[in-house]
């Protein structure tokens, strides 16, 4: 537990990733405070997923550095992994295992004891209202339930930071609301949440936002600050303005 960066859950300094000559993420710098809901906004291909993959240690950065929960993502990968949860845009639970089996598996991987797994899975199932379906194959659950389950499983080991990569893709508005309620509940317990999305209404739910355009952070601040700064009525308008100004120089990749 390094005390020096207790205020910052995530720090990124000039984080860069190139694929050949293509620059997917271009010198991004930001700090995320503990307990914050931080949003990554951007069009498809803006570099959100690549940035997350570098932060969780799936992709080594080409340049720059980053600390997650106080640990260097290059050199302290294992420590980083113990402290984070991750839910990807691709569904990440095993469809051919039951709800309970999935929970047990990830609990076991994160080193929970058998009694911890038992307690947490029953409280988790109860919270989600899935107690009756604990023995069902995950493949048979409706998409919204799967997403909520995946989120809960990512929180099972009580990580300091959770990365959510487009968690609400393809989910109906009601389930999306419930999902955000779950996110707030997690932050209330002190968890930091980094979430990527391209739903602009969701952006308004975030504490702070960074809008990525072509691999760079084009704007960063709370939704209110951004709207004020760009003189826009909604985050959506901010986004459209940014997209227009940056694509004009004709540096489309």
């Amino acid at each position, binding site marked *: 537990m390094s005390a020096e960066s207790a205020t910052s859950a995530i720090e990124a300094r000039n984080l860069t990733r190139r694929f050949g000559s293509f620059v997917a993420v271009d010198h991004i710098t930001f700090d995320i405070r503990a307990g914050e809901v931080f949003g990554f906004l951007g069009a498809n291909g803006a570099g959100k997923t690549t940035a997350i993959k570098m932060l969780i*240690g799936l992709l080594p950065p080409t340049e720059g550095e980053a600390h997650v929960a106080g640990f260097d993502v290059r050199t302290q990968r294992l420590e980083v992994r113990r402290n984070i949860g991750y839910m990807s845009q691709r569904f990440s639970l095993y469809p051919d*295992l039951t709800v309970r089996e999935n929970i047990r*598996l990830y609990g076991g991987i994160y080193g929970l004891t058998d009694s911890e797994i038992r307690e947490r899975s029953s409280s988790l199932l109860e919270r989600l209202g899935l107690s009756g379906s604990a023995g069902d194959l995950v493949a048979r659950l409706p998409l919204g339930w799967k997403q909520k389950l995946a989120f809960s499983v990512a929180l099972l080991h009580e990580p300091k930071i959770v990365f959510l990569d487009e968690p609400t893709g393809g989910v109906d508005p009601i389930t999306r609301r419930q999902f955000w309620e779950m996110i707030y509940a997690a932050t209330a317990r002190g968890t930091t949440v980094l979430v990527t999305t391209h739903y602009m209404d969701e952006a308004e739910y975030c504490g702070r936002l960074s809008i990525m355009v072509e691999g760079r952070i084009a704007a960063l601040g709370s939704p209110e600050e951004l709207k004020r700064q760009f003189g826009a009525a909604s985050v959506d308008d901010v986004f459209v303005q940014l997209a227009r100004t940056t694509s004009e120089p004709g540096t489309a990749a």
Partner: protein
Amino acid sequence: MRALRFLLVKEFLQIARDKVMLRMTIIAPILQLLLLSNAATFEVKSARLYVVDRDHTTISRGLSQRLQAAGRFVLADASPSAALAEEALLSRRASLIVNIPPDFERDIVRDHAARVQLVLNAEDGATAGVTEGYAMQIITRYAGELGATIHASSPTGPVLDVRSRNWYNADLRYRDYMVPGILVQLVTVVGTLLCAMNIVREKEVGTLDQLTITPLSRSAFIAAKLIPLWVIALFELTIGLLVARLVFGVPMRGSLVLVFFAASVYLVAALGLGLWISTLVSTQQQAMFVTFFIIMVYLLMSGLFTPVRSMPDWAQWLAEINPVKHFIGIMRAVMLKGATIVEVMKPLLALAAFGTVVLSLAVRQHGRQ
């Protein structure tokens, strides 16, 4: 290694739920053994014979009768016309023409020697060779009889009394020879193909990324993938051995423990290969193709169908670095000849060396991706 326990449970649950795979792992060995051990034979049961007899004598007819009486030949047709015979050969109605020239009987009686022409359809070289062998045996025996009856020329006794004995396979059952090799093929397919497909599937679905960002160690992940398949492959081998013994009566002259021990060692190499392939490809389709290709080359060069020592030198050198060849050698030696561990030590050590090299290379490659 607590995490390994949970991963193993997961792997076994997934395998048990995959009904298609499960059914395949039971049916495939039985079907393959049934098919291969029956189909894979060069024995020629009956060849279609065309007799062109232009002599029309007792002796020439005797030859034709001898050929038919041996049970190896079925008379397709007979006529004095070489052209008609050729026609039959072209249309595959006949696979062997026996041309008996005029004056056949006269030559036998006068010169003690006469000529016959055998024309074989050698489209299929192996069959032609075997058919020729049968025909020659019958003709030689007939000549001996003729000598005895016509010339009463049998000498006082043979100078050499040659006895030949076929060890390990007295009845020359090709099946006994093929089955151990087929079992190797089976174990290879299960080990390599299933391993590659299984890991690539997690890649395709995205769960591999999910596991990668957990604190799970690489070795635990690999162990959890390989151990269940290792068990399944040995289970497969057990079914195969049972079918071989109970259905086909293939002997097991050596130690069953030795067979399983060799298989366990071999599987390290086979599974390592599967792991290595999984790091090279990104879809199950690719995994299947790459594996299929590699296994095919391995099997063809292993001596499963044709003896390694008939191959050119460079191919024999390649065969030395082919674990399949060594394992087939061990299986045949132990099952058919009752070889002991000392006698198969050399190939066994080779297998162990392969297993170590392939697996460590694969693990390194896996870490690199």
